[in-house]
């Protein structure tokens, strides 16, 4: 099989330079045993990978995607919904290459935009911020996000995945890893850490299910104990990797060794040694405004491509979401499930050899739905009421069909131009030329034959 061969060769050869490879591929040592493959699972998925990107709403990325619950026709957001709701409004518009800014996205902003369910505060909430203006009503489409839209065309797009908490990054990341808001009082890290919480990784570790937390540009010296040293750029790592706020995940080598740099992901994928469960977070390519969405898309593409070329592809599922809505407009009022959420919808995509092709999944989900899938698949206990009650993502799969071959998707939305094959023109014109030979050959041959016949008659 394709990937087994790749694994064998990959394990052999990391050498650079054609002459540096001393042995032929056939002499490669076997790949290390893939322990994740041996674990019993409820589905054919043996490797589940989840990535959390940053700060975009569903309508901001896929509001115009055909077949999805996107921006309703006629949408126009009132500039002043309280005093003059009908006087002036802003229509959703394509952002093109406009510079964007980091809009507010805390619980106050959520409440103002939500406006008791009227969903009309997306412009007014930023009225006093000229640098933001009406930017929240801007959106992207396939011109800006060709790879993500290609993924949606070929795999699964979820259009009802709500952020778990109606607030910013901290609590949403905790819901993602513990099924609970880390700090019930505010969207902030606790100075003393979160040792009181149970994480999905505790569950997995106890059950003997392999896991890793891959961190782009990982700095092992940044954790909740060192946060006070004022490494500004490191604060993102602290928020996006909740495990760095747990003493046990810092002190226990069995746990700490599983928090690794993203470069290990590529090695694990290539060698076919991915763990059963992989959590991933970005650093520079998070798509967090004002960062480049193109850089984020390239980052995600490289992760997905590495999985597709991995020996583990046949039994994998890769899902990515966005930790909060980033202040952007979304037209769906989120259901109220508890005091924390849901928040507005986030884009969410799934790539897997078992993913339905071009499927828009309308199941109501939140970040704990990923936990739910892990729990169901590997048979571990739920962490809290939220994940216990959540829908999982099984509806996005079709396990009755065999695993699909991977398709490396590009960053071009223009379908490859069908090769121009004017076969009829070619056949007709060249056929005429060849047929010319017939009369020009027959004429002299016929005259020679008749001459010979005449000679024969005379003799």
């Amino acid at each position, binding site marked *: 099989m394709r990937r087994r061969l790749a694994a064998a060769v990959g394990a052999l050869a990391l050498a650079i330079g054609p002459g540096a490879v001393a042995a032929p591929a056939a002499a490669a040592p076997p790949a290390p045993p893939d322990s994740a493959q041996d674990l019993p699972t409820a589905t054919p998925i043996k490797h589940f990978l989840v990535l959390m990107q940053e700060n975009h709403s569903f309508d901001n990325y896929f509001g115009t995607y055909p077949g999805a619950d996107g921006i309703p026709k006629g949408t126009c957001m009132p500039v002043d919904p309280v005093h003059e709701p009908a006087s002036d409004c802003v229509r959703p518009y394509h952002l093109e290459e406009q510079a964007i800014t980091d809009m507010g996205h805390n619980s106050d902003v959520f409440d103002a935009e939500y406006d008791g369910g009227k969903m009309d505060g997306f412009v007014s909430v930023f009225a006093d911020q000229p640098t933001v203006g009406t930017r929240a009503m801007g959106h992207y489409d396939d011109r800006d996000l060709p790879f993500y839209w290609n993924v949606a065309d070929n795999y699964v797009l979820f259009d009802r995945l709500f952020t778990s908490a109606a607030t910013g990054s901290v609590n949403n990341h905790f819901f993602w890893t513990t099924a609970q808001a880390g700090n019930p009082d505010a969207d902030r890290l606790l100075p003393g850490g979160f040792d009181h919480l149970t994480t999905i990784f505790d569950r997995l570790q106890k059950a003997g299910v392999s896991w890793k937390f891959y961190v782009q540009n990982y700095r092992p010296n940044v954790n909740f104990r060192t946060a006070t040293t004022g490494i500004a750029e490191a604060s993102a790592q602290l928020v996006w990797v909740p495990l760095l706020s747990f003493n046990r995940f810092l002190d226990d080598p069995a746990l700490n060794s599983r928090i690794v740099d993203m470069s290990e992901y590529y090695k694990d994928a290539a060698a076919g040694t991915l763990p059963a469960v992989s959590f991933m977070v970005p650093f520079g390519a998070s798509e967090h405004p004002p960062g480049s969405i193109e850089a984020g898309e390239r980052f995600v593409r490289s992760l997905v491509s590495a999985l597709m070329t991995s020996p583990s592809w046949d039994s994998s599922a890769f899902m990515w979401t966005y930790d909060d809505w980033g202040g952007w407009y979304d037209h769906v009022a989120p259901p109220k499930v508890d005091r924390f959420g849901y928040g507005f919808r986030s884009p969410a995509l799934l790539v897997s050899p078992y993913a339905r092709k071009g499927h828009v999944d309308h199941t109501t989900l939140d970040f704990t739905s990923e936990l739910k899938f892990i729990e169901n698949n590997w048979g571990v206990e739920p962490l809290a009421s939220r994940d216990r009650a959540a829908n999982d993502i099984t509806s996005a799969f079709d396990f009755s069909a065999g695993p699909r071959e991977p398709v490396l998707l590009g960053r071009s939305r223009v379908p490859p131009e069908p090769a121009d094959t004017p076969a009829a023109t070619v056949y007709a014109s060249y056929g005429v030329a060849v047929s010319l030979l017939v009369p020009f050959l027959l004429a*002299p041959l016929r005259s020679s034959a008749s001459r010979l016949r005449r000679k024969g008659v005379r003799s």
Partner: protein
Amino acid sequence: MTTTRGDGSNLGGARARPDVAGPGGRREEAAAGGAVGGWVTTLRRRSTRRYIGWAIVVAVPSLMLRLWAVDALGVNSDEAVYAGQAASLARDPAFLPFFPVFRAHPLLFQSLLSLEYRAFGVTTLGGRLLAVAFGMGTVWLTYAIGARLYGRRVGTLAALLVGVMPYTVVVSRQILLDTPMAFFAALALYLLIRYVQTDRATWLYASAVALGLSTLTKETAILLAGGIYAFFALTRKTRLRLGQAALAVAVLVLTVLPYPISLKLAGHTSTGGAFLTWQLLRRPNHTWWFYLQAVPPALGLGVVAVAVVGIVLMRRVLTWSEHLLLAWITVPCLFFEVWAVKGFQYLLPIAVPVAVLAAMVVVSVPLPQVRWRVAARTVTTAGLRAAVAVLLVASLAVTSWNRVQPDSGGSSFLAGTGGVPGGREAGEWIDANLPVGAELLALGPSMANILQFYGGHKVRALSVSPNPLYRNPVYEPVINPDLQIRQGNVQYLVWDSFSAGRSSFFSRRLLSFAERYHGRVVHQEFITATTDEGPVREPVITIYEVRS
């Protein structure tokens, strides 16, 4: 001193035997027989049996050399392009994205091959068998030309020489345009001879059509029109009337018209023009000595020597036949010697007249009659002639036999001489192992073509110049390959020793990309090289997976 000719004919043009065209020259009787009984009678005739016997003597080694392990090596770059074009014409979806129909040369051979592909599917063996069929057709035409000019013995020997000649054998085992082009060129020569012998203009027009078809196969065949012009300008044998010449030219133009017409109708007029511009402006790809070094050994040094020595000896008694054959040889030789772009197979059409001249010299050049006693045996002039003929045929056959062995065919990287080691295997590995949509960057376009043919993935080439003056217009340059890899548009790099040998600069550059972008060797192809310390496996193709 008494001189003899192989067929007992005298000098001064009577070497030509215009009415000899079939078994025993009794075609009229066979035609009169009509029914089955007539054929049986014909077959029982001794001359017919002898004719069939000689046909077998010629056909068996010719076929054997052309078919032996014919598909043992994968296609080379040019073969990949022509087979790919034919597959696209046959609308095979696996090739449509990678091989546009309109690239460079006309499409007669590709059109014929596409019909075969439509019927039997795309295989390299099918393409090569079609080329072999044209090669065998050329062998038969060589007989017809030799027999018509100098008699059946010359025709048979010439056919045998062409049948086992390394030049024709090696090229006709490949999906190249040159073998069918040489076939139509030989047909044009044969029909032209018929015209000169009979003075019937219809033969001339038929020759023009054949030359047109040769040009429709590969445009360089039009050079032979220069040979025809030179012949008519120099010969006293026949006077070409202006009206006939004009009509022949019109027929030639009419036959060639499908090339520009199909380009025009398909909206690809610029394709042909761009290719021509590039050919005119590109830098020389070989030295001035290339043809002298490459072609005579392929024709057979003995064959060339015999032909040259014979022509020199006969210089005072040359007839229109030799003039025509020499004109047919000289014009393309002169042109391609001057032309910057040189290719091993470009001179293939001269193989037929060279073989006919050599056979004529062996069979019928005037020689003193000898009768020597050597070791109780009598050596006669006829015996000497036979010995030279056997020597020539044997030397060619042995050389060809060595050349068609799979382990030797792949060791030469000269375009047109065989396959590229490991190319097919690497392409098949790509097809089986890389995900759909993966893009590769090879060192040069030759390997890129091969990998696209077998691998079914987009392969671009690092060495394709961004400067339109220095690249074949059908190839797409990779602008800023660094960025392409960094952005994930290229996921694999392909290093190969064939391209690296041609450009160490691009080899170093590609390897630097592999190093910079976490290159991981995912596949290699090896050949076994013989060294002082014994056989060593050397990598010829290495595929790296890269990421930013």
